[in-house]
């Protein structure tokens, strides 16, 4: 027990005045509390991110503060008494503690030991702090009110198992430093409520996508086509499905071969642009690197009046198109169609899709949404289809639960996030997307526009059709969209259909049409 007694006498010796006493108390308390909190966290008893913030930020800070107070108190004490350090040491510590020995006095040895403990503690605490801050749980819940929408959508995204910091911080000390600096500002803006609602996009200080995304997704990895089937349902009683099936040309092409989507980032290809403003919703111009290293520029002949000064020139990368690769907000129509397609909403319920969409998009008071979705959806069936309530009660329950999930995931009234608060640039359905550049308005010096033809990026195997692979069938002259089927079939399969079978049965003129009978039998003179 001698070392403990020595320690106690050492501490007492340090309590020269109120500052020294505060220092000793702060340091000791912070140390003990840290150990306690760490034990509780390790035991899994406390997981709260706010407690983590206190443990890893506040306590080490207090600990260091206390350590600074002790020498400061000593210095003040020395100045006030006007005595030398040796005199003070003799006065504050018992003779045996300051008695010199070959390995130094006991005071010096205690100081060295405690300094070592401090270094180890601070090193451990710092490492734990960084480790804790790298956890998605910290990012998602520490600033709960602001981050919750992103946290919720992240958890149900394809990147749910990729940590936030892997994309948002990136690799290396510099990246970590930048991120912490930026984080410090974010803490201030949250504390003093200085941020916008919703948080504006795009995020301008993301790490370069080629540095982060390409650790897993590198352009050479994209080849071939990818089939994507989109099911929509009509607003009719049976919620009849209609199919659009795309064969997406996601390949990275080779060299200057275009027409494959990842060509934009493949090999030595480089596309750069200047947007009209920071939202990057419209382009002022876009350039493509030519084989000789020069750039061919396409300018927007209808560029809206942009911000002044205009935003920086950017080299197109992953996030210009995949701007919602992770924090994916669903469009209400997409959500309703998806739920019907996977059977979460039973098509046997009359007008199921129409009512699902109506329930999702109702205008509800903040905080009442999920309950209101239930009332709206169930209320419709109670009023108009009471049979369904009795016969399909379970399906209605399941539909309501699914709709409420969708609503909770997508609507965050605290951050003013309602349906489609953010554009999605993948494709061109829920934002301008590809068409920011692939537009007839983006023309080169000779007035020639960038191609915006539909089959440039995807073949179409069905287009709002009754069957998922409608256009793989031979075109039917009785179908009004026969020629579209013919073109798309040719495009996908290669030119294997000679002539135009769609026009085969068409009358050549009105006389012929009239002479064919049917409704035209009366003759054109009487129409």
């Amino acid at each position, binding site marked *: 027990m001698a070392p403990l007694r020595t320690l106690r006498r050492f501490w007492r010796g340090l309590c020269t005045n109120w500052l020294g006493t505060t220092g000793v108390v702060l340091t000791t308390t912070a140390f003990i509390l840290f150990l306690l909190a760490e034990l509780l966290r390790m035991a899994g008893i406390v997981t709260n991110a706010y407690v983590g913030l206190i443990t890893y930020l506040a306590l080490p800070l207090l600990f260091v503060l206390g350590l600074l107070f002790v020498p400061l108190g000593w210095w003040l004490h020395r100045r006030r008494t006007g005595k030398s350090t040796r005199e003070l040491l003799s006065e504050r510590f018992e003779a045996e503690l300051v008695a010199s020995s070959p390995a130094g006095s006991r005071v010096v040895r205690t100081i060295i030991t405690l300094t070592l403990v401090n270094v180890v503690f601070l090193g451990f605490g710092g490492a734990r702090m960084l480790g804790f801050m790298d956890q998605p749980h910290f990012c998602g819940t520490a600033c709960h009110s602001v981050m919750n929408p992103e946290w919720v959508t992240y958890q149900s995204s394809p990147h749910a198992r990729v940590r936030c910091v892997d994309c948002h911080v990136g690799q290396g000390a510099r990246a970590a430093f930048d991120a912490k600096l930026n984080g410090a500002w974010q803490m201030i803006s949250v504390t003093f409520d200085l941020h916008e609602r919703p948080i504006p996009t795009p995020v301008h200080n993301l790490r370069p996508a080629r540095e982060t995304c390409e650790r897993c997704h590198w352009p050479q990895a994209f080849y071939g086509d990818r089939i994507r089937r989109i099911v929509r349902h009509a607003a009719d009683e049976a919620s009849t499905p209609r199919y659009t099936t795309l064969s997406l040309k996601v390949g990275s092409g080779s060299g200057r071969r275009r027409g494959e989507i990842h060509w934009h980032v493949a090999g030595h290809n480089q596309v750069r642009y200047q947007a009209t403003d920071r939202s990057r919703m419209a382009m002022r111009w876009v350039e493509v690197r030519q084989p000789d290293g020069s750039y061919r520029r396409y300018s927007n002949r209808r560029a809206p009046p942009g911000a002044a000064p205009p935003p920086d020139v950017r080299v197109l990368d992953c996030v210009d198109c995949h701007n919602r690769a992770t924090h994916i907000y669903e469009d209400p129509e997409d959500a309703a169609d998806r739920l019907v397609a996977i059977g979460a909403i039973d098509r046997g319920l009359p007008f199921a899709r129409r009512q699902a969409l109506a329930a999702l998009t109702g205008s509800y008071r903040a905080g009442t949404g999920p309950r209101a979705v239930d009332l709206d959806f169930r209320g419709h069936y109670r009023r108009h289809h009471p049979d369904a309530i009795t016969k399909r009660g379970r399906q209605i329950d399941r539909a309501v639960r699914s709709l409420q999930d969708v609503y909770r995931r997508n609507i965050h009234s605290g951050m003013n996030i309602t349906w489609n608060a953010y554009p999605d640039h993948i494709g061109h359905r829920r934002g301008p997307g590809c068409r920011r550049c692939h537009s007839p308005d983006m023309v080169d010096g000779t007035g020639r526009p960038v191609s915006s033809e539909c089959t440039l990026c995807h073949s179409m195997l069905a287009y709002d059709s009754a069957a998922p692979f409608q256009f793989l069938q031979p075109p039917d002259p009785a179908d*009004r969209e026969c*020629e579209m089927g013919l073109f*798309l079939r040719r495009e996908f399969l290669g030119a294997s259909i000679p002539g135009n079978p769609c026009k085969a*049965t*068409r*009358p050549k003129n009105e006389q012929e049409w009239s002479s064919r009978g049917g*409704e035209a039998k009366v003759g054109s003179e009487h*129409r």
Partner: protein
Amino acid sequence: MRRCVAASLLLLAPLVVVGDQTPVAGRCMTCHKDKTPGLYRQWYLSEHAKHEVTCLDCHGAQKGDRDGFRHEGALVATLVTPKDCGKCHANQFKEVDRSYHATAGQILESADAYLAHAPGGEPVAIPGCESCHGGKVRLDPKAPNRLDHKSWPNSGIGRINPDGSKGSCTACHSRHQFSLGQARRPEACGKCHLGPDHPQKEVYEESKHGNAFFTHVPQMNLDADRWVAGVDYAAAPTCATCHMSASPQQKVTHDVGQRISWTLRPPVSKMKPDWQRKRQSMKGVCAACHGGRFVDGHYYQMDGLVQLYNRKFAEPAGKIMAMVRQRGLLKNKAEFSNKIEWIYWELWHHEGRRARHGAAMMGPDYTWWHGIYEVAQHFYFKFLPAARHHSDPEVNKLIDQVLADPMHAWMQRPTDEIKRDVRSGKLQQLYKDFYKPLAR
């Protein structure tokens, strides 16, 4: 060797067929279904779609067409002219081409165009006048679709097209559904035939015909392929029924004007050339629903009104105006730079037409309150005072002569006496000759 080459060519022959890449409209449809979904949907619901009449059948351009341009691999033109429609609808094209409608774009020398350009200005002439009348289509080689903004959009009925054809079928058969029903409804004509100077739409709405139409729209069978008055529908006639469509005695015609016997447009109405045949044609349509005496009675009343306007107001006003001009009394040189010219213009071009159209299409309020009532008021209390204002002895003498006419002499007589003459029928005797159509 030759055999070898020949054999190779034969083997290659199927590839030529396989590689057949005749532009098909499917390419247009694929993109436009997404980019212009409304347009696509209209087409999809049209009879054209039903019969595989697709984009390039109408929009396909020929090499050398001045408005043609290359678009996604095809040579196309935005502008579709009656000549293009005429490739299939040959009769309709011929009828439209010789119709009065087709000449509506040639108005640049008319008083209307002068008014629009001088007191108004070009920016009103394009969306105001040319939207109905049609203008000369100007080309702009630099524009993506080769059409100058000053002439596109324009679906005026007398548009002067770069291919020499006149008119625009879409004036009545709107793009891209080209609905029969739409063209048969009064609203189709009402886009242009309305307003203070020719309120045909308003007169129709006031008339029993319009009243019956709007009451019985569902019974009108408007989208039927065959649409014969009295056979396929009987609830009411629309503008198209009387002026264009078939009746048991009539064929349909796109040469609008073939059933009109009076021209009610000019300052003084005249019978049109070949008016007896034209009137007989119109009577043929009336006969689908009305008896002969009824129809004759209508024309008797209409002829009376038109000649009342002509002889009591239009002719004297015209003479006075001519004399004012002839004697150089107008202070300002340019046409319409003197107040009396505006008064005279409105007398015939606005009020005068309203009265005549009201009588022609059975709109009582337009015949009297918006019509002759205003003609009379403006004649007596605006036009004559404006003419007398010049204090020219010759003009004053002419005005005195006009007012001495028994039709105008009422102004100098006691009211009781006039009322007695009305009751006795003596005053009506003044107009007894007005009920016969004018011999040309």
